[in-house]
């Protein structure tokens, strides 16, 4: 299992082989506040990196979730349709949103490490 990577759109990515598990960071859920609905993407959908893929709704507003990498949606976290607040409780584990079959693993190098993400947040 590789270490987590991060995007400037506040998503985290964990690679398992050529599968990427994606969610929003703890910092993101904290600033969104109470999350009430996740409009999950369709399984099988093909996306490019930085494309809008789905929407997360907090009490305050709707926010787009972008795909961190090129790939195809393999699976979505159906638990979130029953209880979107899982994202608030455990954004970086149980609150994962979708899994991607990654088409170009090399793209992972464009993402930030945890230290880089922390630095990015401090800016």
């Amino acid at each position, binding site marked *: 299992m590789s270490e987590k990577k991060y995007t400037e759109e506040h998503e985290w990515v964990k690679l398992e082989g050529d599968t990427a598990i994606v969610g929003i960071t703890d910092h993101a859920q904290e600033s969104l506040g*109470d999350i*009430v*609905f996740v*409009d999950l993407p369709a399984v099988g959908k093909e996306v490019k990196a930085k494309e809008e893929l789905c929407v997360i*709704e907090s*009490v305050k507003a*709707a926010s787009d979730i972008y795909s961190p990498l090129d790939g195809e949606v393999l699976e979505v976290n159906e638990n979130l349709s029953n209880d979107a607040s899982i994202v608030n409780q455990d954004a970086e584990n149980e609150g994962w949103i979708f899994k991607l079959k990654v088409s170009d693993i090399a793209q992972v190098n464009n993402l930030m490490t945890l230290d880089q993400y922390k630095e990015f947040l401090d800016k």
Partner: protein
Amino acid sequence: MTEEALQDIYLNNFHKNNNAKFVPFAGYHMPINYKSGIINEHIHVRTHSGLFDVSHMGQILIPLTNVNILALEVYIPLDIKLLQPNKCHYSFILNSHGGVVDDIMLSKIKIEAKEFIYIVYNASRKKVLNEIFKKTIVNYKIIQDRCLIALQGPDSFSVISSILNLSSSMKFLDIEILEYENTKVFISRSGYTGEDGFEISILDNIAENFVQKIIQNKNTILCGLGCRDSLRMEAGLSLYGNELNEDINPIQAGLSWALDKSRLKDKNLNCFQALSEEINTSQSIKRIGISPVNKSMLRAHMTLHNENNEEIGKITSGCYSPILKKSIAIGYINKTLDMSEKLFVKIRDKLEEIQIEKIPFVKKNYKKGD
């Protein structure tokens, strides 16, 4: 929004020290929520009590004279002379075609034997209203040395009674002048949540002491504008800038109950003609409450459509209702709509089915008289 720097409300540091998250609102830096979050604050107000600092709102004291009454009645559809003193009246400042320049709370109060008209108005409309006041009324005082604190929820009476000497006969919309630390506080049994509660106008320099005393009560938490918005939506209350603006009149907004009908025949009311026509003819648009058939979130500005995908209205406010555990919204539709047709909302270019809901969405819990 203007580009001017945001103003702080008087208790800004107090809110900071209590871990408030801030947002810009109507030119002010305002708490949107505190640590426990909007949903928890919302439910706390419905079950216990929550304290809101709404000091951004405008407050004005106007000497109760014939000259001032006549001047105000040009814009306000109330018969001010006949109003009972010590009662709050929800009303409007109207333009010449009946559009809402602002929605207000107006009361007649007596301070040290002098009679005044006391008006609370929206922060977002301060500039416009202050201009109207300047042109029309005399000897008034725009209050700038008082906070406005709202305590809302079923426990409000017992919490406030431990601090102020309230009369137990005080009912919804009553207003009293009471003593606190040798100063005068204006306290009304009113609010913007659909719950029993109070709004308290208190001098800046003792406001923190007062607020600290209230939140020492274990049944009271600090609440921000986030839950104030979802609470007022559940209660079906209008928000200026969303449901109300200068192109919508109170009848269209479902607020004709707040108009004094005798004033609609009075030529001194600048919009008497426009409003009496509106009340006698069929209205062009109509306010409705809606909710989604599935789990989508409804938001302001989304368009409403009929089965043929024709646009027939718009959402003015939408939120997640923590009590109903689904999204609710208020909007306007064309009056001519066939209500047996299915209705849809456009969310991110997809049409999703919605249903009409009764307003208020959640029953109000005011302390009414017998």
